[in-house]
């Protein structure tokens, strides 16, 4: 960057003895439906920021368009509520050029898995260090109940009133098929402790952390997860010392399975089997190359650049 670029970096290193409370991250009251699962995710994110003492001014939430994408408006950090399906490229642009910022991405299932699918696949591959949350309510909320790729087969919507024609796309399986994916987890907003622990693990991971959050939309799909909420037996928790650990969760969710997040094959098999809802860390590999490692902006001064350019001109001199 230019002359004053160093200044830019110095400022960020300023000594800072502020302490942040939850309230420091809370924006205006969220305007989601009452009972909407997005509220829980918001609370968990605010708790995470408090726990990690992230500075509001160096934290950026990037989203697309959808109910879930209103998320950044309800945070008291920087936010970028962009266009439908394109949160990931924007977030990539932010993090690639300002690696010191903490970047979170919030997407709906339509946003990420349908219109944003190409960016999703490629963001997994770039493995830029950020946390991507898929708020999966299996439906298009904001536009009022259209089928999404994750809508269960046979589930009725306004565009497919006879029921969705195809089996639901499984975002975990798809994710686990992408070369260079480095962190893949699933949680549910109605299990706040697990949700929080998952966000925490995702934030601590160096690389692109993909978290699918099962999210209730009481307005359009009140029945979607009602069984699972009522019957913990329908939920299975992945456990492992290297996985996501939640104290005491085994009391609520006794159905547990041990899974080593280093084992991609087991991860895929667990992800594929739809007989039970699985929460936990499916896969993590901190050794995957991160795109920004090789692609960082330099810190050349304007003067240095001018000198280099003048050298360059020699090649073109008449």
């Amino acid at each position: 960057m230019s002359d004053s670029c160093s200044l830019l970096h110095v400022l960020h290193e300023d000594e800072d003895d502020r302490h942040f409370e939850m309230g420091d991250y809370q924006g205006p009251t969220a305007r989601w439906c009452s009972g909407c699962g997005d509220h829980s995710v918001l609370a968990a994110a605010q708790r995470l920021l408090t726990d990690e003492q992230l500075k509001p001014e160096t934290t950026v939430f990037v989203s697309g368009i959808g109910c879930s994408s209103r998320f950044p408006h309800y945070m008291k950090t920087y936010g970028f509520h962009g266009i439908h399906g394109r949160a990931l490229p924007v977030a990539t642009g932010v993090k690639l050029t300002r690696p010191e910022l903490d970047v979170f991405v919030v997407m709906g299932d339509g946003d990420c898995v349908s219109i944003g699918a190409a960016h999703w696949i490629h963001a997994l591959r770039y493995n830029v260090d950020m946390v991507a949350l898929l708020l999966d309510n299996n439906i298009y909320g904001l536009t009022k109940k259209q089928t999404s790729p994750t809508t269960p087969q046979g589930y009725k919507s306004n565009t497919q009133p006879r029921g969705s024609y195809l089996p639901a796309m499984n975002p975990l399986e798809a994710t686990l098929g992408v070369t260079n994916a480095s962190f893949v987890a699933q949680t549910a907003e109605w299990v706040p402790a697990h949700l929080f622990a998952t966000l925490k693990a995702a934030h601590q991971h160096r690389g692109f952390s993909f978290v699918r959050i099962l999210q209730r939309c009481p307005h359009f799909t009140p029945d979607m997860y009602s069984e699972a909420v009522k019957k913990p037996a329908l939920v299975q928790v992945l456990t492992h010392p290297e996985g996501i650990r939640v104290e005491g969760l085994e009391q609520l969710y006794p159905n547990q399975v041990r899974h080593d997040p280093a084992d991609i094959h087991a991860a895929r098999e667990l992800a594929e089997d739809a007989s039970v809802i699985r929460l936990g860390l499916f896969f993590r590999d901190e050794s995957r190359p991160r795109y920004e490692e090789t692609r960082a902006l330099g810190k050349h001064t304007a003067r240095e650049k001018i000198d280099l350019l003048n050298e360059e001109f020699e090649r073109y001199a008449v």
Partner: protein
Amino acid sequence: MKLPTVGVETPTDREVSVRRVTDISVEIVSDSGEGAQKCGQIFGSVSAKMGNGVWTVEIIPAEVEPPPRNPAGASGIRIRLGDREVTNWGDETDVAVAFNEQALLGRHRLNALAPNATILLESMWATHPDPSVRKQWEEAMEELSDREYRIIEVPMEEQCLTVVDNPRRGKNMFVLGLLSWIFDRDLERARDQIGHAFRGKKAEITERNVQLLELGYAWGAEHLDFRYEIGTLEASAPMVVMNGNEAVALGAVAAGLELAAMYPITPATSVSHMLGEVFERYGGVVHQAEDEIAAAGVAIGASYAGRCAFTITSGPGLALKTEFLGLAVMAEIPLVVVDVQRGGPSTGLPTKVEQSDLLAAMFGQPGDAPHVVLAPATIEECFHVMTTARRIAEALRTVVVVLSDANLATGVAPFPRPALSPEWQAAPPDQRPIPEGVKPYDWDPRTGVSRRFIPGQAGGEHTLTGLAHDERSKVAYDSAINERSSTMRSRKLLAFQHTLIAPEVNGDAGGGDLLVVGWGSTRGAIEEAVARARAQGMSVSSLHLTFLSPLPPGLKEIFGRFRKVMTVEINYSDKKGDPFVTDHNRRRGQLSWLLRATTLVDVDCWTRVLGEPLRPGRILQAIRENMPGGTR
């Protein structure tokens, strides 16, 4: 068949005629992969260094490696030399060198050769062992014979074999030697350039090529009976020579741009090739995204984060970026978009020039999305436009679209070496905390401009949105807020327009019969045509526009001084007199459209979509045909 072949004569037998010219075009054509372009580039560089005005254009076939000996596959280069600055590729080629008669035929069919052109043609095909080749040769000669070409057979392959085993990899340097003799080029400089071209390769490669150069020179001296002499101009300032895409790339560095987000597309891609090479050394990054949408998104993300980013593309890619451009305008994120225009619509003519993206660049975004559009007219301007564009984008917090085109992208010409300034690279807004009460869209009611907040600035936390929003960036559905924010976004353009100055008339500012208005890469050709027309006594002037949105002031007033105003553009317009065309339904050139709506002056247009730069001679003819009163 009239085939004026040079016999085996001894030098004393011939009289060498030396023609003195002020301007001449030379073309070298071959199958792709035979190095005609490298030969022409060196010839152009040597000429520029000797003080000639030079304009070089590559002739690029559509396929990567089209079948050999095929008229549609001709690959090559045209070099136009002048005794003063050369601003465009000119009309037709005066001297051509062809590696085979089919490539030559391709050029002939495109009317690229002057009717009395002198042509140096590889002679091996006439006597080729394959009878079908001989037949092609004969048919070609037949077809070529309807012009007054002077075709001179040269045993290129035969000669090269005396030095190298594979003449395909040496013929080009032999031809360079031939041309060096014809145009009396400085051999020392040619040797230097060969050394530069093969730097990093083994020394013997350079040596071999220099040998071929000398062989060609000697062969010319021994066998040819004509030479050209062309005056030179002492350069007043140090010059650099490059093509428009290289100029954009270096201009981006000079402008302090740090991130180029792109997806490959002809003819824009070579900018990123260049930056891929140089950016790394300068701390910049070329990000090749998964598609053009993502490229725009990454650039916008970087710019939002306070960095200086741009995205570069051509027509089909611009189409894909449309939605993101609307967001950048709405959320007031600075963004520079370079569109290197090519032939359209759709995939169209990917390697050929057109100026058909003007209205799409201006109006393509659904909703009201005011932003700046400007077009460099010369290779030098390709360099400087990047600084201008970045500054405007940041000052107005908006999108600036830069319209270059394939003519500028691939044209090579010298220009004064820029004196770089650190100020061009000035960093975006400072990073100090935002004072209490300052809002993310604190629009100055007079100018619509507001201060940019970037992540990292304490106290500036807010969420930017593409939804309608108020000064605090809160989503708002209120009527008054929508009217107000729309007004503020538009006012930035008005305030900016106020700072522009009226363009200068080239020719007679006082007025006259005809005013030709152009924009972008056609400037050189238009001004040359105007100069010729004026020399012939026609009362014609021209005006060239750099800013298309907003338009500079004073146009209506200038137009009022001329009896007729007409744009000259490389885009489509219905021709008067064609079936069904009326004054009312005629689809006009894109600039003429803009000017008519703005000034209500009856601006006519003369446009062509021939997939090639306009020739000054054709513009001259159009001027003649359009002189009010008629000078025909």
